């Protein structure tokens, strides 16, 4: 029962945050200068009628919200307009139907463009995160247990180096090494123009394209996870209950698994959750280096093209990912630490 109340309260906060983000996001892009007729399509020969037609097509002829015609330049309008005829409520209404608008650049629905990009990013980020979480936790645990030995020193140095490497630089080096010596593909998700006899061959080709970006991502994140895990476990190992566990005659494995790991996972969950939310977008550098058609590359391109609907959609998606990741972290926390569920800190 307590758990359910806790869950509902968290869910309520998550929904409130999303509503706030939707509002902020909408007005952010209305305050920014430029619309598709003037900035998106840079053609001075466009007639006034044609410009007006483009604005109508994207719904920009309607008032932004009651009393405001446009926000940039600021132009006051009538206040008695039917709210449902304003851009804001049309936008919210479309959102409820799962529509995120139309890209200024491709004229395709933003939702389907983002959907494809998100899928690719999740493929890349997901694989890399799974590897780095598993190996980060194991390495950190071992390094802490063997602290101040050669094992610890090696793992520590490697992690510090991995964490400090600039992501794009590591990407370029791996791209060079992998393509030159291992013959791995350098660009995109699938080999262009390739005809696949069956789905297995396609999956293999996808896998080969995934190796280098996943490896880059794993190395970068693994270092961070290992370092955090190591220092947390070191803290935990100095706790009195670890001494109790040793005094009980438990084996090293039991002490690490049942006592150290469980307590050390608490801070890890926070870091991983925050990372997961952000890496949906944080793969920008890697996706750009490897031309991986994910969300990061989509954002990078949309910024260059001033494709506001696309950016607006991407921002919303990122915000929702971060909020969801945090929600999951909260729930995991309540499972891992019984004190939280009971409302204690």
């Amino acid at each position, binding site marked *: 029962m307590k758990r359910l109340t806790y869950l509902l309260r968290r869910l309520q906060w998550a929904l409130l945050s999303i509503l706030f983000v939707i509002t902020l996001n909408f007005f952010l892009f209305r305050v920014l200068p430029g619309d598709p007729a003037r900035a998106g399509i840079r053609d001075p020969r466009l007639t006034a009628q044609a410009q007006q037609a483009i604005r109508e097509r994207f719904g920009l002829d309607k008032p932004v919200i009651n009393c405001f015609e446009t926000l940039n330049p600021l132009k006051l309008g009538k206040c008695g307009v039917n709210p449902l005829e304003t851009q804001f409520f049309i936008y919210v209404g479309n959102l409820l139907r799962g529509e995120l608008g139309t890209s200024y650049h491709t004229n395709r629905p933003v939702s389907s463009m983002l959907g494809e990009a998100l899928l690719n990013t999740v493929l890349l980020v997901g694989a890399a995160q799974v590897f780095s979480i598993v190996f980060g936790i194991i390495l950190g645990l071992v390094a802490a247990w063997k602290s101040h030995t050669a094992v610890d020193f090696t793992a520590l140095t490697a992690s510090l180096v991995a964490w400090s490497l600039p992501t794009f630089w590591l990407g370029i080096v791996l791209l060079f090494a992998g393509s030159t010596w291992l013959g791995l593909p350098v660009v995109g998700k699938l080999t262009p123009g390739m005809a696949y006899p069956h789905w297995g061959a396609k999956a293999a080709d996808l896998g080969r394209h995934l190796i280098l970006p996943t490896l880059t991502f794993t190395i970068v994140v693994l270092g961070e996870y290992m370092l955090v895990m190591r220092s947390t476990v070191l803290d935990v190992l100095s706790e009195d209950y670890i001494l109790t566990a*040793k005094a009980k005659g438990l084996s090293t494995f039991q002490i690490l698994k049942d006592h150290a790991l469980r307590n050390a996972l608490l801070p890890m969950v926070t870091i991983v959750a925050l990372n997961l939310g952000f890496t949906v977008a944080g793969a920008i550098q890697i996706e750009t280096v490897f031309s991986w058609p994910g969300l990061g590359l989509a954002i990078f391109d949309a910024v260059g093209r001033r494709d506001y609907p696309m950016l607006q959609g991407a921002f919303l998606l990122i915000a929702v990912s971060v909020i969801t990741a945090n929600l999951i972290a909260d729930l995991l926390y309540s499972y891992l630490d019984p004190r939280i569920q*009971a409302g204690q800190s």
Partner: protein
Amino acid sequence: MKPVTGQKTLLSVRHLSVGYESEGKLLPAVEDVHFDLREGEVLGLVGESGCGKTTLMLSLLRLLPVAGRITRGEVRFGGQDLLDLSETEMSQVRWRDIAMIFQGAMNALNPVLPVEQQISEAIRRHDASVSAAQATRRVEELLEMVGITANRKDQYPFQFSGGMRQRVMIAMALACRPQVLIADEPTTALDVMIQAQILELLLELRERLGLAVILVTHDLGVVAEICDTVLVMYGGMTAEYSDVDRVYNHAVHPYTQNLLKAFPDLSQPNARLISIPGYPPRLDALPSGCRFSPRCPAAFERCHQETPGLYTVEEGHTARCFLVEGKV
């Protein structure tokens, strides 16, 4: 009256010396300590903070921190020297034969595991033939024994008060029916009423289970009340060691005498409390000669130059002081 203790010696410590490695040097924390623990005996270990009490206790179970080294001596238990055992053999002795409860129990229990799991893991670690259901039943039994209703077994440490948590710790310590229980300041963090309850519980269990207890404390009142023998430590060394009666009424070591004067005596409410001037020595700056000599009111020339040996006052009463030398 105090229950008569058995004659069989369970634990016998000889010449035990422990040091901590620091910046390439070995700082002596415990030096040349002797004591015997018989069946059913309660041994009080007293001394100021930092005199090596906890170090001594941890070294009995070989649980010293990484920097700790046992440099000399033997810890005889059940016909073998615990210091000769392999790490695996030692882990079997822990808790099954010698269990330990720690100061405050606040942090000695794992905050994220229910108490049942923490107790039953000890049971099943030392007896693989115990089924999960049997272990649960035993946990319930143990909790009832220390005065906690069995249905609280699924609760987490934070759901218990300080005193209750120490009871859980005691139940845990008794899980494998040990012969020796080391209680390192078990009541320090508790209020006076709860302290009394916990000590009473320890005594009651001692009588019921025939447990031998080493009670580490700096409360001389507690020692007088429940201990059979007393080991007074100063600066990592034995100051005086004897039965409780002789230590309280015929103390020979100036440190013991002063320690007793520094403690309120309810039969003489008008007597002034006397504090011992100065501070206990630091491990990295030990005085030459007797370690108590800089603070000792009876110190003479020789005390500052030579370290006194452990002299026998009479059978079962030893002290490390030149004043005792030759009095046999």
